[in-house]
């Protein structure tokens, strides 16, 4: 029996040795390995949108404009003009743009793509809700497209980085009974710098460079292939980067960032973005409809403690708008941590000694949202208010925000503007028509603010718009419908063999694969 066991042991060790040695393959091309935190669910430009989908769409398709760094840069567009009241927008397209099958990206394709998008009414179309419809775009000639909007909309240009142009011939050939949705969910019909390679659902997605891309490449050493490898767990994100199984890792926390930053051969990109956290206060709530109570809550928040206790890098908010956002008003009179002032404002409420209890709702399991609540809890306890920490599943939070009656007293919400314009930041959070969405879970209503936001939307003159937004921000700050806490930094970890990353505040986690430069990357 002992001999038999020994034999078994020898066989087991021999098998292990066969398996243990990792298999390596020499590569004669630049293969970028990107560790992405999220799946790429759906690459139909008309129905898909989130950071991972956007990374895919911007690689596979071209839009009229592209966000590079902090700028909105013309992409398919050569020149453009707009009429005085911002209702008619005319774009001349670059004549050399071609789809992957060689057919031209012309005005008809733009009209087709916009019409398809507006017909399907998928999530990305909220940008143009009430602004345009399926018939708003028209081809004036092969290279000229004109949008006639239903009402003036000054920030229209900013929305066009999400208007990805599909190849009408491919969509028509695969139209089915759902306008090509089934096909485009997992197939591309674009003109972008990459085409699709392997597409293993829930696992890995490959982008293959179009070597003679019509728009050209920034670097000779651009990725020939880019693989989006799903890495959901943060520890495995870091370990796979350090084991050279990936070259870029997204969603890194502070501790891991420090560890990677100290490791030779790697570097960290830590940038303040527009991913904005605020504790929305239900302005229609039983207690929280009282402005003085909202001010008391806001003065009881120890803002300065947040960067020290959170495990994610953050920058404190100077008011309703993040610092650096174009048009943000500086020097607003917003609360700081001041318990005396908190007590002063509380004294002006029907509950001068506190003794009330408020719910604080946050996403179950998200430590930094819980910690933010605990900081507020500590401050409120000092002024006699009890904060009930209420973790919830995200779908339940979304449902709770559908109505002021079910909206929590205070809820932790992250927002991210969809385009680099104050309209994208303020309208969905503070315009009273937006009630029902979690972005507007403060159920804020100020008729003057509504008027200002509506007017700014239809004002073409930049200076006049800026004034309108300045006043709106000042009024919002005075009404305190939220405790404005912080913007969360975008932290990406890189192997030094990858250079050329340009932080995009608007797409803080989406890397433009096409702009990267690779030298001797391990695979």
């Amino acid at each position, binding site marked *: *029996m002992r001999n038999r*066991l020994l034999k078994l042991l020898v066989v087991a060790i021999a098998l*292990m040795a*066969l*398996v*243990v*040695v*990792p*298999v390596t*393959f020499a590569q004669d091309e630049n*293969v970028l*390995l990107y560790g992405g935190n999220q*799946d790429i*669910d*759906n690459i139909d430009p008309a*129905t898909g*949108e989130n950071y991972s989908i956007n990374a895919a769409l911007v690689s596979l398709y071209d839009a009229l404009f592209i966000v590079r760094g902090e700028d909105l840069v013309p992409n398919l567009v050569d020149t453009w003009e707009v009429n005085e009241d911002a209702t008619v927008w005319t774009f001349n397209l670059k004549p050399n743009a071609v789809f992957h099958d060689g057919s031209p990206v012309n005005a008809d394709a733009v009209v087709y793509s916009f019409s398809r998008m507006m017909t399907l*009414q998928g*999530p990305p179309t*909220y*940008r143009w*809700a009430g602004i345009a419809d399926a018939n708003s775009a028209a081809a004036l000639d092969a290279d000229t497209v004109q949008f006639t909007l239903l009402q003036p909309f000054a920030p229209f240009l900013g929305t066009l980085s999400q208007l990805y142009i599909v190849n009408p011939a491919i969509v028509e050939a695969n139209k089915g009974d759902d306008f090509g*949705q089934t096909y485009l*969910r*997992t197939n591309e019909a674009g003109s972008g710098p990459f085409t699709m390679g*392997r597409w*293993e*659902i*829930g*696992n*890995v997605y490959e982008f293959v460079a179009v070597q003679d891309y019509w728009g050209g490449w920034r670097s000779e050493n651009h990725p020939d292939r880019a*693989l989006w*490898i*799903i*890495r*959901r*767990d943060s*520890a*495995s994100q870091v*370990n*796979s980067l*350090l*084991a050279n*199984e990936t070259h870029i890792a997204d969603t890194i926390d502070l501790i891991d960032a420090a560890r990677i930053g100290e490791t030779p051969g790697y570097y960290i990109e830590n940038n303040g973005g527009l991913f904005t956290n605020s504790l929305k206060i239900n302005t229609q709530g039983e207690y929280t409809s009282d402005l003085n109570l909202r001010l008391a809550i806001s003065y009881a928040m120890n803002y300065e403690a947040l960067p020290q206790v959170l495990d994610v890098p953050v920058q404190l908010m100077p008011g309703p708008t993040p610092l650096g956002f174009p048009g943000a008003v500086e020097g607003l009179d917003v609360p700081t941590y001041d318990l005396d002032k908190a007590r002063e404002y509380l004294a002006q409420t029907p509950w001068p000694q506190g003794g009330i209890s408020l719910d604080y709702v946050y996403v179950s399991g998200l430590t930094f949202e819980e910690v933010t609540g605990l900081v507020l809890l500590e401050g409120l306890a000092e002024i006699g208010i009890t904060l009930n920490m209420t973790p919830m*599943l*995200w*779908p*339940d939070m*979304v*449902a*709770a925000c*559908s109505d002021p009656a079910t909206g929590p007293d205070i809820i932790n919400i992250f927002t991210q503007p*969809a385009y680099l314009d104050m309209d994208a930041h303020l309208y*969905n959070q503070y315009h009273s028509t*937006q009630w*029902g*969405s*979690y*972005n507007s879970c403060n159920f804020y209503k100020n008729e003057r603010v509504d008027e200002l936001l509506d007017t700014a939307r239809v004002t073409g003159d930049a200076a006049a718009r800026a004034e309108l937004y300045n006043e709106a921000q000042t009024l919002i700050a005075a009404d305190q419908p939220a405790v404005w806490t912080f913007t969360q930094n975008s932290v990406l970890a890189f192997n030094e063999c990858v250079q050329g990353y340009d932080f995009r505040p608007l797409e803080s986690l989406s890397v433009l694969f096409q702009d990267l430069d690779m030298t001797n990357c391990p*695979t």
Partner: protein
Amino acid sequence: MSIRLYVLRRLVLIIPLLIGLTLLTFIISRVLPGDPVGLAAGPQATAEIKEALRREFGLDQPLPAQYLNYLTGVVRGDWGESLYSRRSVIADISTYFPATLELTITAIAIAAALGVPAGVISALYRNKLPDQITRVLALFFVSFPAFWLAMIFQLIFGLELGWFPVGRRFAAIETPPAAITGMYVLDSLLHLDFESMRMALSHLFVPALVLSFGSLASITRITRASMLEALDKDYVRMERAIGIPNRVIVTKYVLRNAMIATITIISLEFGWLLAGAVLVETIFDFPGMGLYAVESSLRLDFQPIMGITLIYGVVFSLINILTDVVYGILDPRIRYG
């Protein structure tokens, strides 16, 4: 009743069980608070966009109609679409299930291959050093949470020693073997592609080993207990008295009798591992059913939740039938009825 008839009857009985299961899951998923449509449509979706999505997925219909539509779809092979990714549930399951099945089969194979001999040795050396060591190790494995072991093993074998990949099913840069079963090791074997098989095994080994530990401990303890009980039987004393070698007594008689309890625990553990691989799958980024189930649940994505429940229901039922059949093979006295 013949075994064939028995299996057929049990298979037929699965149908009402599955109908009950789908009904229960349907009711639970619909009565839970939450707005999956609002979530899928995005934060800025207008009421029209949400309504269009609700219509598209039939969520505007009365609940009985929704359930009937679902059932007829299941029979036709259409298990619906994810509200979030809009992918077909059956296609998703056929992608994710083989990964989890491969992981679970490997884990249970490791657990059984190590646990049964360990249990036997432990019983044969009762209260002696090998028994003590085995019992301590069993206690160790059952006490440490799988996610902790997973992280430690990933660090040691993946990052520090570099013996095994940090995670995933296959090197991202390489194309996995063409799917026949969806299980990479088996598929590469069927294609006679031994390089791919080695790569698949190198990715599979550490997650499967970590996943096996809990079951390994249970199998060891149950085998030990069953062996001790069997060793104490009169027929063993009689066999020893008539001079049958101890090796033959143990392997031919005692182990066979002790295996009934072991088979039960192996089949139960297999079911639990199948449903409980989520933590290991998450840490090793092993794209299987566990991850799919958790992501769908967090989003209240109805159709995948229903599909996952259904497939697990089928698998559990089949495992139970298989276990009953194996009982009969091990102990011919067992009658099917």
